[in-house]
């Protein structure tokens, strides 16, 4: 079932929108990353992600993930009463969330390196090189 993000939304950080499957796979660490700068409410997180090229993330996709992150202890929450309007729930990163984010970023970087290495390996092979001539990426836990 597709994530309800809008892949056609303009991405300021990326040259073109990422496929929705990528956004879906990276959603949890992306939310944790958006909170690295300080606590945000749900809509603020959605805006921060949109500004980073993750497309317009609808509430239907965002809050169940936030609930899971809260359950896992990666974010803490605080309800802030609204003045005249509905209140809002602020999300803040916990120490476990910070560690999870660092771990996920390292895993994604390793994945990118492994992808690049595969291409380099192919080119080296075409030039008569061997797989051993291509530097292997640092082993990481499989990307979440």
């Amino acid at each position, binding site marked *: 079932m597709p994530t309800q993000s809008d892949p056609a939304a303009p991405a300021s950080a990326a040259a073109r929108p990422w496929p929705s499957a990528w956004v879906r796979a990276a959603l949890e660490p992306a939310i944790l990353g958006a909170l690295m700068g300080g606590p945000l409410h749900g*809509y603020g997180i959605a805006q921060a992600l949109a500004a980073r090229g993750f497309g317009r993330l609808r509430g239907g996709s965002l809050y169940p993930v936030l609930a899971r992150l809260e359950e896992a202890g990666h974010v803490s929450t605080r309800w802030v009463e609204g003045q005249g309007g509905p209140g809002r729930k602020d999300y803040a990163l916990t120490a476990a969330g910070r560690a999870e984010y660092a771990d996920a970023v390292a895993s994604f970087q390793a994945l990118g390196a492994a992808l690049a290495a595969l291409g380099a390996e192919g080119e080296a092979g075409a030039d008569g090189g061997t797989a051993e001539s291509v530097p292997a990426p640092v082993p990481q836990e499989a990307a979440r």
Partner: protein
Amino acid sequence: MTRHEPPLPALLDRFAAARGVPADQDWAAAAAGRFLPDDVREEIVLRELTEALAAVEESGQGPEELFGPAADWARERAAEASAAGESVLDTDPSLTWRAAPCNALIIAALFSVPFAVVFAFRDGLTVDYSWGHVLFSLVLAVVMTVVITLWSQTILRRSFSATVGTVAAGAVPLVVGAGFLLPWLSEQPLFTGSVGWHAAIVAGYLGLGALGFWLLPRDDVPDATPAQTPDDDAWALVLGGVLRSKLAYSDARVREVVDEARAHAAASGRPMAEEFGNPQDYAARFRPDRGRRLRWEAILLTAVAVYWVGKLWAQLADRAAPLDWWTVAGAVLMPLIAWRMWRMHRRAVSPHPG
């Protein structure tokens, strides 16, 4: 989902046939038995089992060997589907008044079997049948159906505490009424005959239950207004009802989810239906509060256990009255069942289950 998975019984048979090992079918049945009480949508259950079956057929290895214990695998698959943004939970309305007669007949059919066994042991080979023998299971089934349906319907619209009050107000006169009716029915003679007539009573209820199942209207009607977009208040009402009834969320937690959705919709300037989609599908993306559900079930079972133990204690205190074996059985079994439920609750809320 574009594929058409076979229905569950056929799928289970295919597990047995895949390697000719009956234990494979037991594994699949145990997995299905874990999915279904967790209210996982049937199409997800069928899809996951179909994929597991394909792996068994291709590898020639057993499902236990490939995937580990069935219950753990089922939990993991449901959690993964939920993490991938799928609507995992079945959020269809559980029980309606329209289906209540049918449900009551089926429950009566199920009740009539153990009651027949109890009556047969109690009364001996030749029985003076009364209307109590015939209608005991039906009266209890009607009470149970009314209470459950009242709960299912009220929790969709009212808070948990208001629902408890409403159901208690409805249940008390019913239970008291049944308490007067059942002894009176037991005193209304019908005929004297063989203990074998119990089989006819069981068969009669099973037949009526099956007939009701086929003839009486059921719940599988499509949504009356699928094309209409509900306004924010109607949307929030449905979301709250599903969170309370299907996910066992507390009133405070429901309020938080609904208020957060309202705040998000207000900030985005879009209606809640547009921002969150169908409220049932949105609710189905959250994880149910299994610990809370099990706690309430454990509390109810503990109350039943206290009743049976109290009944036994009263019989023991009254030395003139003979001791009923079913009272002893109830006083032994119900505390054990309640203890098991508390144990399940402790496991569910433990941060390190297993």
